[in-house]
């Protein structure tokens, strides 16, 4: 539930650095579980640039909507087009097929991202 190779935000996004200055971004298992059945993911166009913490889209479930905030500043290289027809991938495979955008990191990775252990502690505190 907390892959060690990812970085996490307090708002339950994850970021997976590829090592070449790019990274994938999605929402965590905890986030998808809290949302319930995802029915639509509204994503930006490739080329859009976002600062850290800026809203880059929304994820809609049957019962609610949640903003997507950029974990670290970057420019969108690609969005996960498969989510248009299969938004349920966010529930079924949040760290894999449910990825949302691929970004080119602008500058260094944000310093305040959480590692897996710190994020697990945060989630554990929120659920109790």
């Amino acid at each position, binding site marked *: 539930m907390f892959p060690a190779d990812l970085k996490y935000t307090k708002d339950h996004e994850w970021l997976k650095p590829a090592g070449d200055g790019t990274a994938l971004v999605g929402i965590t298992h905890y986030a998808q579980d809290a949302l*319930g*059945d995802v*029915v*639509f993911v509204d994503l930006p166009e490739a080329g859009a640039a976002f600062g850290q913490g800026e809203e880059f889209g929304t994820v*809609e*479930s*049957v*019962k609610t909507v949640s903003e997507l905030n950029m974990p670290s500043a970057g420019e969108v290289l690609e969005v996960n087009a498969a989510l248009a027809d299969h938004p349920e991938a966010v529930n079924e495979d949040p760290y894999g097929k449910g990825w949302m955008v691929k970004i080119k990191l602008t500058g260094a990775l944000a310093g305040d991202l959480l590692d897996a252990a710190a994020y697990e502690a945060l989630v554990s505190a929120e*659920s109790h």
Partner: protein
Amino acid sequence: MSTSATELMKTPLNAAHRALNAKMVDFGGWDMPVQYPAGILAEHEAVRTKAGLFDVSHMGEIRVKGPGALALVEHLTPNAVSKLAIGQVHYTAFLYENGTFVDDLLVYREGEQEFLLVVNAGNSDKDFAWVQQNAKGFDCTVVNESPITGQIALQGPLSVGILQPLTKTPLEPIGYYFFTHGEVAGIKCLISRTGYTGEDGFELYCATGDTERLWNAVLAAGGSHGLLPAGLGCRNTLRLECKMALYGHEIDDTIHALEAGLGWIVKLDKGDFIGREALLAAKAAPAPRKLVGFKTLEKRDIARDHMPVVQDGKQIGFVTSAAPSPTCGINLGLAYVPTELAKTGGRFQIEIRGRAVDAEIIPTPFYKRQK
């Protein structure tokens, strides 16, 4: 997560929900399952095509009994109580003098002068106080039976087939919005052919202490039919598709019964009742707003409860309930809009997070079961 679960009220099925790994939420002060592991979409689908089982023990029950009971319930509600046969149920409301809602409720006629009033959980205390306060001068007793009553709702087209093996009471002859008393799985129940999902089904009332046994018996009987435990999440999408009102959304103490489209529960010619004069006046003057059903035109535009309805940057109404509809496959909702706009095909806009999106008025109910 500011409210701890220990402060919330619990139904007799709380442990059963937790054992089923339900996701629990604070629903009007009650610790209730919003969904089970199957999820809202699967639970919604089960109710529409097979069956779902809901815990509705949080609902409030008020019994009114005695020589003045009929007169009191007639006085308290706008629907024609005297027309109810013993064993029949109807949907109605408690109204304030100005015609707005104290609550909506079901009235069960248990006898010539005995009625069971079933009210919303969140309004239960307010409703009981309202009935007591208005019962002065009526020769009857008013008892809050909520603490001693459990309730579960079996809903869906396979309900009769699932329930019949558990009871000697013939279920098929019970008409829609009728009830009887009988034993289900050896437990004394009020068996009511009612519900809040738009499907066939039964609401079973029993003693609090019997509720978990009844729940487990029905769940076990339905397993091979595809019965799923169903939470409040799908209860909301199911009732919304059928345009059934929810207190705090389509109706509340600022909205009167006629603009809510509930003229059919208001029998102005039945004699006096609380709110009648205001509704007579409202009927004479055209209502400035009306409740309509709408869909948004783009897949990405999903309206939600309480969003503003706008025109030329000005708010002209509000959304009461809205969600992506699992059965209809579109994003739909209910909204109050100016009466001059309120016709099928009419367009307006809804402000979704600062963006005005197009919506079109479509006929309601959005979903109607094939009988």
